[in-house]
């Protein structure tokens, strides 16, 4: 199989299959995501949305097929380069994945510390992004003492604080009321306008409001359609 390079595509998936044991989670997925695209991956519970995102940040590896992210073939990337790949990607996990023993501030700052940024810069950026998601006042709280929606907003803050090229958001508004929900979507749109590529996995079609967004539909591991709203 030849991989055709496309200057405009930041993510390319070629006939990707993913099996968990006997379970076929993704079946023959081929998909190009352009630079600075706003993509929704839609589908019911268990369709494979999270799995698709997971493949992109090497949270798991493909069973078959190939994936290129920002020109890097994920099958060939050495173990030691994975952190650098992940720094290009901001991830909002479906289950938030906040560190329970670190404060909100520390959870968000961690991303920048891992990049080796200076303390003053970290402080400025973290406080700024916490303000944006409305969590500045809770910056010293531990995640287990936050409400579900508050945790989700911290997860969003952590995903965007490093100014990533790509943002992967897995149900980023699942625990949020419509108002907070809209605020988060607006925030993601702001990064989109700044040039980031945004991929949002969701079961909730009502949050898809962007006029220029692309929507793909997953169902039982298969890609159904490839349509704009």
């Amino acid at each position, binding site marked *: 199989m030849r991989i055709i390079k496309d200057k405009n595509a930041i993510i390319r998936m070629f006939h990707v299959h993913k099996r968990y044991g006997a379970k076929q989670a993704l079946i023959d997925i081929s998909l190009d995501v352009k630079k600075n695209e706003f993509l929704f991956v839609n589908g019911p519970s268990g369709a494979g949305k999270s799995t698709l995102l997971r493949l992109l940040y090497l949270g798991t590896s493909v069973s078959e097929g190939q994936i290129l992210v920002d020109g890097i073939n994920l099958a060939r990337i050495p173990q030691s380069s994975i952190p*650098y790949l992940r720094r290009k990607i901001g991830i909002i996990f479906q289950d938030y994945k906040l560190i329970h023993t670190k404060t909100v501030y520390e959870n968000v700052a961690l991303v920048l510390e891992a990049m080796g940024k200076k303390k003053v810069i970290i402080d400025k950026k973290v406080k700024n992004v916490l303000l944006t998601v409305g969590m500045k006042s809770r910056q010293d709280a531990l995640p287990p003492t936050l409400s579900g929606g508050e945790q989700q907003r911290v997860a969003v803050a952590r995903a965007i604080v490093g100014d990533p090229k790509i943002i992967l958001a897995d149900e980023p508004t699942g625990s949020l009321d419509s108002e907070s929900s809209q605020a988060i979507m607006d925030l993601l749109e702001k990064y989109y306008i700044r040039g980031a590529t945004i991929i949002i996995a969701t079961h909730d079609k009502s949050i898809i409001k962007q006029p220029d967004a692309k929507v793909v539909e997953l169902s039982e591991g298969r890609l159904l359609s490839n349509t704009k709203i």
Partner: protein
Amino acid sequence: MSHYYKRAVKDILENRFQNLVTIITIAFSVLIVSAFTLFFYNAGNIINSWKQGIRIMVYLSEGITKAQQLDTKYRFAEIPGIQASRFISKQEALELLKQQLQRQSLLLGNLKENPLPDAFEITLKPSSQNYERLEFIAKRLENLPFVDEVEYGQRWMQGVSAVVNLISITGYAFGSLFLLASVFIVANTIRLVLFSRQEEIRIMKLVGATNRFIKTPFYIEALIQGILGSLLGLIFLYVVYLFIGTYFKWGITAKTVNICFLPYDVIFVIIISGMGVGMIGGAIALKQFLKS
């Protein structure tokens, strides 16, 4: 680097319970091993002082001259394994015997002349203080001119040799066992702690942290734990040592047995080992968790 150090200290404070368990586990392990070391260090000293008592009596032929006697003394230098020799005249020997016999010395009261020979008392180098060497040296001494007879405490030597062997073999065997046990216990305690922090490590990896970024604070933590634990263990041992020491001195006033604490170099080695064990235990666990 100072940044890593700060994170490590913060980590220790945040996970106080687990760190305390680790430090105290290290302390107890160090305590066990160093208590054992201390015991055998002192036992070794006592045994050595016994061994110094290993000596060979060389009885000279009757009626030799002063020159011949000196000649004999010089020839001892040719035999490897001999540390020193001391001349004991027949008069001296008789005096000694009378002292030894205590009550029975009245047996010697009616002696007209001293039938004892002149003699040399020979002490051996530490390396030659075993039964095989002793016998060999005695043979060579016997073949020297002007030497009438050689005597060495055969049965006594065998007894001491047995005890010394037993103690040192037991010492080495148990010492290695305790060391092994301690290393294992410490390493596993650290693995257990890291096991409960797997999720945290996994999340750090997902947000782009390198292995080095994740590992370094844990290593520094292990280092600090190792130092604190070892010191704590040694301090505990020292307290026990003082207690035994005073109790012991209070109970009896024998000067024959002198106990002392571990020398500085051993203490240093113990602290370094404590650190090392902590780091190795951490390294194994981290390797395991960073893979998945």
